[in-house]
Each structure stands twice: as structure tokens, then as C-alpha cells.
């Protein structure tokens, strides 16, 4: 990917032209340094990327993100007036980047910092790695980084990868994909989040064409033998991670519930008494056992793809058909688990909670295929 250009310097001295020793210069980014001392102008792709980054980041966060990036000097940072319009900011930043000769990959770093701080845009999809080899548990970050970059560039030559380790042990990977003859497209990067030694990774913005490449590279780099879709998707990265790793407040079934569970009951007037209060308490307890207590991870939807025979005694024509009735049921909400829990505790959903609903937190999935053979949603959790 580098271009060797031989530049010969001729010094015009009075003694006549003498050829200076040749100097070879390795050029990347197609920007040619004509003479030492002039500033490079940013090429179009860098300009576009910078424009897009400035547009995407809200002004309040722009200052902190630029500080974290660290590619601007202190005076440059002081000189930026954040009350200007975004276009003016872009121009200013462009001139600073040209001054500091910031490359495309450094700009990508800026975008990555912003995305790491605000991961909740776009949809994250989960994948699960299968069949770990014996030494998968002892995988180290440096090895993983090297292996992953190596495997991915073997599969696709034109690809730009950036790996960063976040403070909470998550490894963030930013991939800009190119084609066989085109340079990596930094405007549509894929982000991958993986916690080492766990079998899951979360992907955002990956096309189906490139999915096998990424899966192969990750599988090999993490020393597993297979990968499959984990059927869990959501906007909030921390939530789907917490759901999968079961990191929310659980309520365990006990024979003698403690009296402090009764505290949630609204204090009724002493003249109002419930005849069947224990039924409501029992229902609430079961709902909390299935879905958890306190704040629940935010899921936006649950999709059930039904491939079952139509069953309705009052509709003979449909029931008599031989083939299965295919339909898709989608539940959506701003916080799906919270709403399912309150459905179960208020009695709208019958208690005990049906396995179709309880599989969502239990198996950590929100896409199910239901067929007639299985009594509940298909596929087991490993």
C-alpha cells in the first residue's frame, strides 16, 4: 500500500549542479509532499470524515472528546470557539489538522473515542463463539490484537483496523472495509465489542456480505471453532451485555419470603382490606423472579416467528388447512423487560409466566422461532 517515490535534490550552487544523494520517501494517503516545509492539504476522504465526525458529535461533548483525542496542541484547543456554527468549527478543525498533519487513521481514532463514550446509537447484534480450544481461556490482549489484524488482512487486503481497550475490560474494534480495488471506506465503519474470555461479541453496522469475513477472523483470533448468531439485538450496548451476562438484580425463589418484600405495597387506608392480597403478592413475586428486581436492562423489541398450525375451534376453514400458519409477532417498547414485568405482576399476563416470555431473560435472546414440535422457543443456550 505504500508508494515509493524517488526524489532527487539538486542543489544549485555556483560550482554547477551536483546531485545530492537520493532520498527515498514512503508516501501514504496519496498526498504528495512537493517541497519540505509546506503544509499538506487534507484529501477528500479525510475532509469528509472530519465533517461527518463534527456533525455527529453534539457540541457539548465535542470539547471533551477533542481533549481526550490529544492530537491538538493546547493553544489550538484554546483557540476553538465552541459557540460557532458546526460548519465554522469544521473549517477550524480542518486547518488545525492540516497544521498537525493528522492522518485519516488518527481521525478515525477521534470517531472511535466518541462512539466508545456514546455506544447507544444504532443497533447492536450479538454473536456467540462456539467450541473453544484448550487455550482459549488464556488469551491475552496483545496476542488477540495481532492475530485478529493478521487474519482479517489475509482475508481482505484493503481493510483498516483499530483496536482499543476500554477501562471496563471491553475490547473495541473499529473496521473500515475496502473492496479488492478500493480503499477502506471510513464513512461506514463496523464496530465490534468483545470481552476477552467470554464467548460473546457485539457488532454494529455490519453488512451481510462482510459478516463471514469478520466471523472467521474473530473465531480464529479468539481460538474458537465456530460462531453463531445469538439472536439478541438492542440499541443499548450495556443493557444487552448485562442481560447476556446476567448482571442485573436477581430474585431467587425462597420458601419463606422476607417481610421487607411487602414494603412495596402502597399503604392502604385501614378501612380498606384486600380479601385476596396474597394472590397479588404471589404474582408480583413470580414476576420479579422471572424478570429480576430493580432497574432492568433495556431491550427495545422481542420478535417471535411462528411456524405453527392454526388452532381456533371457531374458525374451521383455517384450522382445516394442512400447512402451517406463518406469522411474526413483535413486541416493542422503550423498556421491554420492565413492561413485561409489570404485565405479569398486575395480572395481565397469566402467572406463572409463560416460557415464551420468560425465555427472554433466561436465555438472553429476543428473537425466537416457534414451531409445533417444541413446547417453547427453540434452540438451547450453551
Amino acid at each position: 500500500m505504500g508508494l515509493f517515490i524517488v526524489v532527487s535534490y539538486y542543489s544549485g550552487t555556483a560550482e554547477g549542479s551536483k546531485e545530492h544523494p537520493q532520498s527515498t520517501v514512503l508516501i501514504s494517503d496519496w498526498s504528495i509532499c512537493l517541497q519540505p516545509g509546506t503544509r499538506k492539504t487534507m484529501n477528500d476522504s479525510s475532509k469528509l470524515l472530519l465533517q461527518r465526525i463534527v456533525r455527529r458529535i453534539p457540541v457539548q461533548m465535542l470539547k471533551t472528546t477533542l481533549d481526550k483525542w490529544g492530537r491538538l496542541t493546547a493553544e489550538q484547543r484554546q483557540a476553538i470557539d465552541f459557540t460557532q456554527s458546526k460548519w465554522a468549527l469544521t473549517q477550524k478543525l480542518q486547518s488545525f489538522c492540516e497544521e498537525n498533519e493528522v492522518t485519516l487513521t488518527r481521525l478515525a481514532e477521534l470517531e472511535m473515542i466518541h462512539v466508545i463514550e456514546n455506544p447507544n446509537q444504532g443497533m447492536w447484534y450479538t454473536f456467540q463463539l462456539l467450541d473453544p480450544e484448550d487455550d482459549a481461556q488464556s488469551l491475552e490482549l496483545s496476542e488477540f490484537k495481532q492475530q485478529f489484524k493478521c487474519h482479517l488482512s489475509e482475508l481482505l487486503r484493503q481493510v483498516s483496523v483499530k483496536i482499543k481497550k476500554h477501562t471496563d475490560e471491553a475490547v473495541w474494534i473499529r473496521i473500515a472495509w475496502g473492496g479488492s480495488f478500493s480503499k477502506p471506506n471510513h464513512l461506514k465503519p463496523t464496530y465490534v465489542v468483545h470481552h476477552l474470555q467470554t464467548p460473546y461479541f457485539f457488532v454494529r453496522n455490519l453488512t451481510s456480505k462482510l459478516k463471514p469475513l469478520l466471523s472467521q477472523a474473530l473465531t480464529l483470533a479468539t481460538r474458537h471453532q465456530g460462531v453463531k448468531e445469538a439472536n439478541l439485538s438492542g440499541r443499548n450496548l450495556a443493557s444487552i451485555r448485562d442481560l447476556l451476562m446476567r448482571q442485573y438484580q436477581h430474585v431467587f425463589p425462597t420458601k419463606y419470603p422476607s417481610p421487607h418484600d411487602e414494603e412495596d405495597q402502597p399503604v392502604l387506608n385501614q378501612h380498606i382490606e384486600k380479601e385476596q392480597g396474597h394472590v397479588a403478592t404471589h404474582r408480583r413475586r413470580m414476576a420479579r423472579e422471572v424478570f429480576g428486581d430493580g432497574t432492568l436492562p433495556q431491550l427495545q423489541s422481542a420478535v417471535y416467528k411462528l411456524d405453527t398450525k392454526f388452532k381456533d375451534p371457531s374458525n374451521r376453514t383455517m384450522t382445516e388447512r394442512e400447512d402451517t400458519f406463518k406469522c411474526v409477532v413483535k413486541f416493542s417498547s422503550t423498556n421491554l423487560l420492565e413492561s413485561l414485568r409489570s404485565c405479569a405482576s398486575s395480572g395481565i399476563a397469566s402467572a406463572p409466566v409463560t416460557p415464551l416470555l420468560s425465555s427472554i431473560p433466561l436465555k438472553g435472546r429476543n428473537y425466537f422461532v416457534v414451531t409445533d414440535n417444541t413446547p417453547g422457543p427453540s434452540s438451547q443456550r450453551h
Partner: protein
Amino acid sequence: MSRLNPFAKLPGLNAASVLLVENEEHFQQSLAEALVKETSVTVNVRLAKSFPLPVENDESRPRIDLVVFIINLTSELSFQSAEASLKYLEPGYFLGKVCFMVSNARSSSVPAERLDAVRRLAASLHCPLLFAEDQTQQGVTNAAERLLTILKVAAGFVPFTTSLCLSNLTRSTLPPDIDQPSFD
């Protein structure tokens, strides 16, 4: 099968007890809070989802003067649950100590047959049928006021009037054109 008996216990002093039975357990809460605001009489409200009532409470339960079945017309289950609960009451209750309260009758999603079915039920049992609006505070207060009128008679606080006497005046009757199709 133990039924609820209207005259098996002694009444409380200056107290009236009402049992609100509702399948959804939603309207009964706000209605109960409006009912206990009454000052001249101590009103005890018991809330239930459906019959049979739990046997453990039989001892501590006061004498129930009035049983109110709250039916949400938008739900068929509500009506069926109320109908199924009727057999757990002693016949003595149907002499003016049972009342039906219906909510969401104005909703357009309610099939006309359901309201007719409720009317027929109330008329066959000679019970009053009240319509309530449960979404606003004013509606709840109005419903509570009307219930209190019937409750005071049923508990014996109104001289020279018994619940049987009142039920002759307030009982639901079927409109003569109930079997005609309606103009919706």
C-alpha cells in the same frame, strides 16, 4: 362450598361494610378510597378479585352489607368472572344487597350484546344496575356517592327503609325493545 351469608354475623356499631368484586382489580381501588371518605358512617371496604373468598378470612371478615360486582364492559372475561361468582352468594343477598356497577359503557369497542347480557342478568336477579365512569376523579366520586346511598340503606342507617324496599324502586328492568337490533 361455603357461601357468603348476609345474616350470619352481628353488624358493627355505626359501621357499614361493602365488598367490591372486580376481575381487573383496578377501579375498585379508587372507588374504595372515595368510599372511606364518608364521615357520618364508618365504611369498611373489602376488595376481591372473584369468588370464592379465602377461607382464612372468614373469621375476621365483618358482616358484608352490600356486594358490588364491578364489570368492565370492554372485557368479556370481566362479565364471565362476575357471573361465575354469583353462585357463591346466599340467596339472601339478592334481596337488595347486591348491586352491579358497569364501567366503560360509552366505549365504542363494546359490543351491544354484552351490555344487553348485563342488563338481563341484573333484571333477572332484581338488582340495581349503575353505570360509572372510572377515568376521572369526578366520575369516581359520583359513583361512590350513589353506592353510599344504597349502602346506607342496606346497612340499616336509613329509618323506615330496608334494602328490599329500596330494591323495588331501584331494580333494573329490561327495556321493551331489548331484542330489537340497535342502530349502530
